[in-house]
């Protein structure tokens, strides 16, 4: 990967709203080059989307996030891919990772209520043929998410003028 792309990614990973002309200025290149690099990375699936970090806790809208450890029986010729796909196709599933260690798949799920999450686990997840067992953890508080500290705002505490 060339360094321009890497530099672009480093910036937009933190701020995807920055526009292409500003990127060009900051990286000392032409806007066309930026547009081109972005298009290429989108096509290659390197850039998978432009999301917004939302701290739902502050909105008053109820959300429950659960982290579910799932143990499964891998299938001949398919490994874990098939079962992972069956799980990630559910729209309420946010994240699915294959893990090393004590369990196989980590599923992160967002629901409106505890009941909704519980319903998903007992009705949909646990009933899948290959699923041997699940352990559900509810997330109580997000301190830091995707490199962003959620609990407090950055304040500039420097003296206002220094030599």
């Amino acid at each position, binding site marked *: 990967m060339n360094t321009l792309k890497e530099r672009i990614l480093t910036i937009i990973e933190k701020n995807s709203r920055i526009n292409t002309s500003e990127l060009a200025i900051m990286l*000392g290149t032409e806007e066309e080059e930026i547009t081109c690099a972005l298009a290429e990375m989108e096509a290659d699936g390197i850039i998978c989307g432009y999301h917004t970090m939302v701290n739902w806790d502050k909105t008053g809208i109820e959300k429950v996030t659960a982290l579910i450890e799932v143990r499964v029986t891998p299938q001949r010729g398919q490994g874990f891919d098939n079962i992972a796909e069956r799980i990630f196709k559910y729209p309420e599933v946010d994240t699915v990772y294959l893990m090393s260690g004590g369990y196989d798949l980590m599923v992160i799920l967002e629901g409106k209520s505890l009941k909704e999450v519980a319903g998903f686990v007992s009705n949909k997840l646990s009933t899948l043929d290959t699923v041997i067992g699940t352990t559900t953890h509810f997330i109580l508080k997000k301190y830091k998410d995707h490199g962003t500290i959620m609990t407090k705002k950055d304040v*500039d505490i420097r003296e206002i003028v220094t030599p």
Partner: protein
Amino acid sequence: MRKDLLSDKTVGLKPSGIRRFFDIVAEMSDAISLGVGEPDFDTPWHIRDEGIYSLEKGRTFYTSNSGLKELKMEVAAYMKRSQNIDYHYNHEIFITVGGSEAIDLMMRAMLNPGDEVLIPQPSYVSYEPCAILADAVPVIIELKNENRFRLTAEELEAAITPASKILVLPFPNNPTGAIMEKEDLEAIAEVVIRHDLYVLSDEIYGELTYSGKKHVSIASLPGMKERTVVVNGFSKAYAMTGWRLGYACGPEEIISQMIKIHQYCIMCAPTTSQYAAVEALRNGDEDVRMMRESYDQRRRFVLHMLEQMGIPCFEPEGAFYVFPCISEFGMTSDEFATKLLQEEKVAIVPGTAFGDCGEGYLRISYAYSIDNLKKALTRLERFVTKLRAKNS
């Protein structure tokens, strides 16, 4: 109260221009500042963690006067890998309370009454008062915009007298952002050697250079190590201003006298900071690279916005300042900065805070987030548009 209560020398020192400006700004709670001379990054966590760990382990005692052996050895290794200079960790290096202490100590260790110290300006505020406190005579060399604020051999030559002893070489420069490249330094070194001068090379911004130009220390040139004291520290490169830690590298003869003053006045640099600094030098290269890249992006951003406003500014290649020229507006730097603060609530330090020849310039610090820079510079743009409309 007795009439001779205070020292004439101290009372006679000019008050700092920054201080005066600070007092005005401090009155305004909602001003946006581009006036800060320190990084906006927090000290990288692994460095802070080492500081905390050292406290947990009870490393709460004095270190040796000249500093922790591990740290001095890391400094020696750093000088070797960054500048290819060999310094003996025990005889030619010692740890100070910030680069500032080292500046003061070198002057006090070397100067006799009447000796002259050559100080290029605009530059950091402490060289002139330190020279005066060491009973020496500061001789100011005015750096020029047309030379991109580099020091030329001709300018140096013209300022030399039989009393000249120390040349201060403050590059990469605060407030101009100017750097000196190898050829520039070679020309200076030739004059320095011919006139038997010594150099105080303040390289505190040495890690922060851009456009692919790596900082070169004058001490790395032939014949210069023995007549240079390199002053450096952790404040700018590792975002460690509050830790107050720096160091000096130079000939044993000078360093040992500097240590003598240090041992009486300071004892030793803060122990916690020294442990943290060992970690910075051992595992901090990637942090420095990341911060440098980020400053460089902001540097380009600020230069671009100034260009759009039609405010002339040479392209600085070091530190984290730009030094635009605002003389077209027919105001002094002080008037411009004060008016900008009153009308648009943006705090930018007038160039004159760094020497009289900073008249007509402003120091804009870009150690701020892009959002903050954009907000402040948009206000500056509105301000200059109004001024131009009024003046035309």
